[in-house]
């Protein structure tokens, strides 16, 4: 496997002060980095032990994004992440896996083939150097990096202790769009949706979906040779 080591600024362009605070010093990337210049990037994240409906929602959203040329970002974890990556690929879209492991390791093991496909045809990113020990604390830090790489984050479903919540809070701190599904927002057993909605998260519904797409960047200027447009 060939890979490159880049700073976040080399990968994404100059970061603002808020972005710099939690950005990792280096990112290890394998695959096609041109994906980063192809359009908007939306993270689809959520529970490893997801419900059947949750998996279907993740797959449906990933297919809608893929059809619009929007890159699907996720964490290659079991459950929602896997469903999002697989649906994006199936529908001809592009996808980025932000790993909680180094590039030369896979978690969960059963996603080895999926990780291989993503490295070959899409893009995998890790903030951990080859050989770095895989520890539980890596994964929430990975979620913060995923928020940095994404224009928007959608939490499909998550418990009050889910790692996806780290990404939600980081997205809010960065001023990025954060959506939670209606089923999550209306679940009385959860406390986090109300907290995140108070601080600016929005509910993803059929009505809000088109407005959501309109707010994403096109990244038009990266394909133009026209200088600064004003």
């Amino acid at each position: 496997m060939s890979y490159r080591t880049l700073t976040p600024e080399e990968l994404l362009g100059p970061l603002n002060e808020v972005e710099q605070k939690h950005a990792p010093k280096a990112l290890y990337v394998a695959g096609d980095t041109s994906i980063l210049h192809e359009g908007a990037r939306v993270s689809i994240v959520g529970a490893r032990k997801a419900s059947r409906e949750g998996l279907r929602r993740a797959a449906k959203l990933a297919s809608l994004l893929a059809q619009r040329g929007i890159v699907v970002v996720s964490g290659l974890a079991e459950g929602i992440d896997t469903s999002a990556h697989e649906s994006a690929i199936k529908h001809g879209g592009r996808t980025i896996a932000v790993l909680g492991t180094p590039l030369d390791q896979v978690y969960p093991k059963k996603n080895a083939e999926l990780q291989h496909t993503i490295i070959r045809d899409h893009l995998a990113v890790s903030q951990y150097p080859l050989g770095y020990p895989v520890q539980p604390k890596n994964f929430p830090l990975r979620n913060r990096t995923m928020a940095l790489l994404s224009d928007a984050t959608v939490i499909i479903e998550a418990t009050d202790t889910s790692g996806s919540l780290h990404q939600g809070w980081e997205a809010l701190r960065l001023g990025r769009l954060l959506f939670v599904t209606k089923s999550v927002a209306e679940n009385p057993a959860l406390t986090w949706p109300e907290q995140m909605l108070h601080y600016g998260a929005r509910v993803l519904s059929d009505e809000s979906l088109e407005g959501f797409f309109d707010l994403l960047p096109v990244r038009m200027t990266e394909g133009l040779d026209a200088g600064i447009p004003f």
Partner: protein
Amino acid sequence: MPAFPSKLPFGAFLAYAPRGSSTASKTSRDVAYAIKQDSTLRFTQGGAPAAVRVIDYAAKRIGEELRNHPFLNDYFNPSVTLIPVPRSSPTQPGTLWPSLRICQALIAQGLCGNVKTSLQRTKPVQKSAFAAPGQRPEPADHYDTVEVAPADLFTAPQAITLIDDVVTRGSTFVGLYQRLREAFPAVPIRCFAVVRTVSPGEVASILDPVQGTITLSGSGLHRQP
């Protein structure tokens, strides 16, 4: 119910078509997004890749256009205190605040006297971009969810320009103007957004400095242009 102004002048510097399909309109989306995110616009010039921090560049361009568009001098001069529009929800410390970043960039260009974060959001208000037409936040929703910082109530600025990143219908400006008017009855207060939306339709030019009017009537809000 507070007595909101029926006609509120506003200024804007750039134009953006959220749903336009032309090259200029799509580019305008990227510009507006970069301002809302305090991010970079990446482009190529003569085949070479380049990037610019859009808020800082826009502040510089506003300074350059003062001579071509004299009305801008009413919004930006050394007697003016800039007040950034708060985000649409309460925020935790360290959260990106685009309007404050715009104010800081304008100060860095020497265009205004100072900036005060006098307006604080105490409750979330639904974002207009996500709301169905009948559910869009009204001036009263903005008025009710924002307070003037107590420490700023006792020293009235000489003049205020309320700064927002994007103006859509103008609901935010009308609601927050009234908050500031009640706190500072004798102070001139102006409203300025770096970007105004053009919807429906396309933008011909992203650079389009205008002075317009937000009208509040029984039929609702109307912004022109």
